[in-house]
């Protein structure tokens, strides 16, 4: 069985306009002109059809274009073009790993053997168009057995075009010879000869062409004949996902910022979906509007306003990789609510760290646990109420010091819920529950409550704390612990368990308390009540 190579060319018409439109979709239906060039002689380099109908022309100066009030003028943004090109590459790599990065607006794909995945050539072309559309771009797709034919037809003809095998010359003959991208010198020669179309070029004898214009002419002749071949220069897949947005007017309210962040996150999520990976973490970077230095009167000591910081960054790590843009937006919103940037934002950059999507398989015998995505959002909301460091799972520190613990980030994965072996071990623990003792818990006071203690023979007899006084009925102690004596702040504590009978009408009349004597501060504290 012979193997027939098949190539697809993806071309983005009006690439500069589409790059801007991808970041600001509302501009697609407005008259838009893009200017570029050395300042101050900006010239219109790209414009959409609506602006053209209004009278704006390519090459017009910015000042002249500004006369048209309805036309939106934007400077050329390389950042947006880079993001659009990266998105286009993601689309290509989602179809096939063999991709050539020919130009910012053109990609060549080797789609040989993909019929079993996507279907015939028409279905492949439609799939490419659909995926590019999901990322905010309209593309032309041409499929041919000849690489150069596909490239030229994609640039020339709109929509998906299938060039049947052997019909390459027929498709190319009516196209202008400029589509072959000849050098300036060769273009002049063709112009002098009256060679305007590919058909005219292919009608010239190859030998004579070679003698007159050299190998470049022979190469262009072969391409125009539909026979020009060259190897595909493969581009390495890059796992770098970044989206940018530069704003004309700085944004200073969270609601507007959330709207823009949501758009960028949607685009990132779509790009990662195309590559079958998920977001493990996102890094958000803002460029802030510089604050004005207020003039101050030197005769009086007024507070000098410090310039606002130029940048602001924050990182969001997900417990499990996700592509849910809405969840990411909510988490980002909560984070920015608790730690706002502090100045209006001029530029937004979001970088996503990719990771393989999580694979979960539910089990019949594992107890239900919170959904990781929902849990992350719940914890973020609680953290906005109580603070980041006050929500999580406690972890004891390797220290004998009382109350030595830290609060670490809680996640279902770290809780080890899904391990069926641990479940089996836990079940055996349950079976022994009935004979287990019930331990007393300590209801801690944080910070420890200062107390006054009267001693008799080194044993507490009377205590005073929290406005109450009591007699010590039983005392157990002292239990001395100390540590970190080799450091600057050593600690030493004598612990006592006291049963106290309170005087007066205190309720309850009795209680069991943990007292401690701090040897460094030489003071008594109440650590907690046994409850």
């Amino acid at each position: 069985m012979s193997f027939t190579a098949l190539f697809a060319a993806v071309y983005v018409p009006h690439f500069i306009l589409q790059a801007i439109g991808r970041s600001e979709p509302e501009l697609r239906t407005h008259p838009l002109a893009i200017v570029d060039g050395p300042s101050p002689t900006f010239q219109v380099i790209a414009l959409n059809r609506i602006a053209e109908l209004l009278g704006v022309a390519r090459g017009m100066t910015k000042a002249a274009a500004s006369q048209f009030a309805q036309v939106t003028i934007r400077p050329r943004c390389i950042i947006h073009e880079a993001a659009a090109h990266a998105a286009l590459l993601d689309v290509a790599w989602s179809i096939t790993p063999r991709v050539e990065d020919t130009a910012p607006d053109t990609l060549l794909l080797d789609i040989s053997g993909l019929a079993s995945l996507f279907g015939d050539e028409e279905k492949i072309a439609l799939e490419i168009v659909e995926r590019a559309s999901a990322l905010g771009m309209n593309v032309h797709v041409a499929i041919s057995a000849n690489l150069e034919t596909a490239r030229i037809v994609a640039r020339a003809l709109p929509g998906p075009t299938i060039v049947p095998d052997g019909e390459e010359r027929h498709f190319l003959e009516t196209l202008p010879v400029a589509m072959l991208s000849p050098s300036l010198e060769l273009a002049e020669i063709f112009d002098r000869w009256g060679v305007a179309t590919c058909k005219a070029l292919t009608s010239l004898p190859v030998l004579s062409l070679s003698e007159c214009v050299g190998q470049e002419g022979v190469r262009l002749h072969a391409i125009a004949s539909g026979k020009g071949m060259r190897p595909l220069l493969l581009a390495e897949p890059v796992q770098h996902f970044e989206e940018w947005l530069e704003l004309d007017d700085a944004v200073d309210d969270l609601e507007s910022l959330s709207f823009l962040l949501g758009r960028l996150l949607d685009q990132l999520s779509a790009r990662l979906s195309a590559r079958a990976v998920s977001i493990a973490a996102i890094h958000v970077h803002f460029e802030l509007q510089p604050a004005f230095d207020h003039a101050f009167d030197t005769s009086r000591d007024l507070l000098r306003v410090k310039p606002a910081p130029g940048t602001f960054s924050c990182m969001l790590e997900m417990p499990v990789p996700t592509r849910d843009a809405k969840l990411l937006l909510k988490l980002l919103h909560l984070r920015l609510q608790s730690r706002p940037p502090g100045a209006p934002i001029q530029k937004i950059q979001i970088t996503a760290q990719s990771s393989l999507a999580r694979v979960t398989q539910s089990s019949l015998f594992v107890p239900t646990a919170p959904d990781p995505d929902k849990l992350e959002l719940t914890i973020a909301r609680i953290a906005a109420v109580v603070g980041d460091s006050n929500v999580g799972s406690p972890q004891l520190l390797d220290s004998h010091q009382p109350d030595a613990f830290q609060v670490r980030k809680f996640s279902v994965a770290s809780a080890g819920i899904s391990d069926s072996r641990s479940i089996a071990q836990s079940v055996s623990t349950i079976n022994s529950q009935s004979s287990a003792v019930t331990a007393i818990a300590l209801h801690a006071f944080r910070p420890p409550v200062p107390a006054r203690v009267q001693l008799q023979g080194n044993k507490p007899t009377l205590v005073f704390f929290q406005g109450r006084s009591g007699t010590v009925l039983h005392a157990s102690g002292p239990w001395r612990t100390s540590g970190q004596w080799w450091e600057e702040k050593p600690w030493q504590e004598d612990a006592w368990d006291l049963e106290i009978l309170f005087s007066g009408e205190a309720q309850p009349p009795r209680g069991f308390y943990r007292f401690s004597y701090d040897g460094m501060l030489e003071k008594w504290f109440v650590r907690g009540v046994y409850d």
Partner: protein
Amino acid sequence: MLSRSNALRLHVESALTGRVASPFRFQQPQPVTASMGIPALDQLAGGLPRGCLTEIFGTPSSGIASLLQSALVARTANAEVCALVDSQDSFDPACAEAAGVSLRQLLWVRCRNLDQALRSVDLLLHGGGFSLVALDVSGAPAKLVRQIPLNFWFRLRRTVENTSTILLVLSRESHAKTCASLVLRMERAAARWSLRDCRYPSREFHTPASLLDGWTTTAEMIRSSSQRRNLFFIDRAKNTDSANSSSEIAHFDLHSNHFPPAASAQNERT
């Protein structure tokens, strides 16, 4: 018409006799319960009901924190994820871990005031997925806790309804009232202090100091919707000596976890 429907009903009931008991009577489904980790209490109340609000109240040193700890031990031992909303940041992780709580499966919310605790528990319940959500307001000023409106407890109860989450509220007084499906009152009985004599002095024992071994706690079931018990204080005067009141009380021992007793715990029920 009415006599015809009655006749039809009698006919159906007689046909289903022996197969279906009371086919026309609506039976409230019994809630699924989970062990508290204390056999006497499980026997008294049937365990902690899932999808319901359980309230446990008592004075300091009555054992409510120990009961919470025991419930956490039982739930985390079953590989379930628990959450504790601590209104006064009074949870002791060292004590809990020594008792057997798997701290990795516990989400601890350390609040500085009652308002933070109430908002946090609301967020947790709406997030869902937790087997046990405990709200500890026992350390909060009683005056502030009394100001929590009843509809808040009602709303919490409605949030956990039809879920498998146990909502456990610990306080010094009963606040949830009829919103709670199970209400337990804890009271401490006599404590046990033991004097440990050693023939040869040891670093482990400070003789002749006595050690707190623990105490006996009495748990009284004030209300249980599964057993259709009303508020106890209404009938207290009548039922003090009745057999029914004695079945609503359970005694169990709490032990210091530093020196476990030689004999195993004996849980009694009068």
